[in-house]
């Protein structure tokens, strides 16, 4: 696992992200419940040692609906190491580990919502 994504116990999702991107684009790996935004980039490079090639990870993410432009909201996280996370991608709920979530960059909205709240918003349809 790359140093950037090691989550210390005192890790706080709203804190400034390690890459310091001013535009609010952060990897999904560092998001917490209630964080929502739009996927801006999906690569196969998660920053961790993966059992599958980058191209393969990218295709798997795409097939599960992690595609540029999809809305995303973090719904839940596990107890230990706050891993894995459950997210809503458009209207599909998906569970994944934070390490793989490192391959998804998200433009997060400013505000945060209560964890576990249900979103009924559908993007521009």
């Amino acid at each position: 696992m790359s140093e950037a994504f090691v989550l210390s116990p005192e890790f706080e999702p709203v804190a400034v992200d390690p890459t310091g991107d001013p535009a609010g684009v952060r990897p999904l790996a560092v998001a917490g419940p209630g964080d929502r935004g739009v996927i801006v980039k999906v690569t196969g490079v998660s920053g961790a040692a993966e059992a599958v090639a980058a191209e393969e990870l990218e295709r798997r993410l795409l097939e599960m609906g992690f595609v540029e432009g999809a809305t995303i909201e973090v719904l839940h996280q596990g107890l230990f190491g706050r891993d894995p996370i459950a997210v809503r991608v458009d209207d599909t709920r998906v569970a994944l580990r934070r390490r793989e979530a490192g391959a998804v960059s998200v433009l997060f909205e400013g505000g945060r919502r209560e964890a576990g709240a249900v979103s009924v918003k559908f993007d521009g349809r």
Partner: protein
Amino acid sequence: MTPDIGVAATVTDTSRKSQPLEPARVALVGNPNSGKTALFNALTGSRQKVANYAGVTVERKEGVLTAPSGRQMRVLDLPGTYSLRARSPDEAVTRDAVLGRLAGEAAPEALICVADATNLRLVLRLVLELKQVGRPFVLALNMFDIAQRQGLRIDLERLSKELGAPIVTTVATRKRGLPDLLEKVEGLVAAQKPEAESVWREPSAAEIRAAHAEAQRIFKACVKPPERPDTVTGKIDGVLLHPVAGLLILLTLLFVMFQAVFTWATPAMDGIDAGFAALVAFTNAHLPHGLLTSFIADGLIAGVGSVLVFLPQILILFFFILMLEDSGYMARAAFLMDRIMGGAGLHGRAFIPLLSSFACAIPGIMSTRVIDNREDRLTTILVAPLMTCSARIPVYTLIIGAFIPQHTVAGFLSLQGLVMFGLYASGIVSALLVSFVIRRVFWRGAVEPFMMELPTYRWPEPRNVLMNLLTRARIFMARAGRIILPLMVLVWVLSTFPYPPEGATGPAIDYSIAGRVGQFIAPLMAPIGFNWQMTVALIPGMAAREVAVAVLGTVYAVSGEDGETGALSTLLKNQWSLASALSFLAWYVFAPQCMPTLGVVKRETNSWVWPTVMFVYMVSLAYLASFVTYHVAVALGAG
């Protein structure tokens, strides 16, 4: 190629127009959780056949049905997938079947693509892939009642035009829309359009993106968002996926399940046990004494009985698993357990196989098929027999009953219960340690991604659960029976031949091959505190763990059907030291005293390597554990 399908294919080619028509070949494809199996059950009812695809351990489910027009159809239920780009052996079967490349299978004449009407986004991309294959298909929008209840509006006409395929709305659990579906399928088969050349190839990431964009365009054009979207799933998840409450609920659920497996099954198991014991006694009483009678009674009947006795537990276990799967909770359980299992180097999906192994390692090992990654799957298979299966219980009960006093500890805990708990805990802890060692020392490969859809919660449909339960039970009986029966016969041969010489005084088993092997290796077992009787019991005990109890009865020549365990336990108490007894328990936690399990591992891995590895590591662990237990106990004065 199976003979019947082969004939069907050739006849169809030559006499297509003549009556009666050969059954049409149809295959079901779709995303996981789309209700595909429910639709398959609704279409084919009880006329299903479950087998394996040639050469791979993927389940092949086929059913026969008669369309309203009288046309026969063979329907194949293909493993669920998000893409034709296969990642697991299961998905490879789906891809090859759809492409008509599957060895031993005739290509389907038409496909039914099953989609959850309330969750179309991902399946549309799969539909676009199917379109490239060029095989005629119908899109079945399943669970359409839920879509209607949510006020989801789908422009069926436009969607059908965009996809170039007929669309049918179905509610599999209520059998709605099925005649319409079959009519459309028949139409496709009858049209016999010259099959378009397949232009499908494994898509690159860029092509998947393009297909996604196209699917998104179609989705936006044809589907109006629901007026009353499902909010229940989110609310339930708020509780069930809560980091702390969710885990507590899962543990409670497991506890209830565990209790049910052991308490609900007991009357049925006792009944089966008594029934077979009576049958053996009856056979012995009414057939002339001799080899044939002994073979029928002790080899065949006892063998069948030893398989059947676990059926009640396995049915209850499967019932819970099916309920959890159909309700959508199973994916949540994997989510909650992933990190805990991951710490030991196991995949989140290894959870169910390991849970099943508490009843019996055989269904547990069979269910490792859900794990995509080979190393993950092999690790799970290797540690599954360390979970305390129910066949160990008779052995544990006998020894604990004989040697552990009925003290109460700390006011309310029974010492016997504590020892039992300790044995279970050692099994679990050692399984986690072994998998940790395997994944950190032997296979230091990187970790397989964990990504799974969390489906919408649904009430399990009783009929569907029942049908799947019967299918599971049939599979277990067929597979286990095929492996266990011959082994039971083998063990009978080993413990029967050669006969004791004239005027022999000891029990007959002492003179058999099993007895001799036992006495031969007895010196090897002396350092762990086993006497030769214990060692002899281990040999037939290879057939199934609980057989050792019966063999101990035989070698100590305990007679009488009733109170056998009571008499035996008193006898053992006088013959064995406490240290030997504890060492025997430790042996049973680890030893691969179950040839059927090794047989299933051979079958599931298609190689003798893994059963050998399993046998060697488990025997070594058992010897080590018994050695330590024995010597510590002796040092503490229990020798």
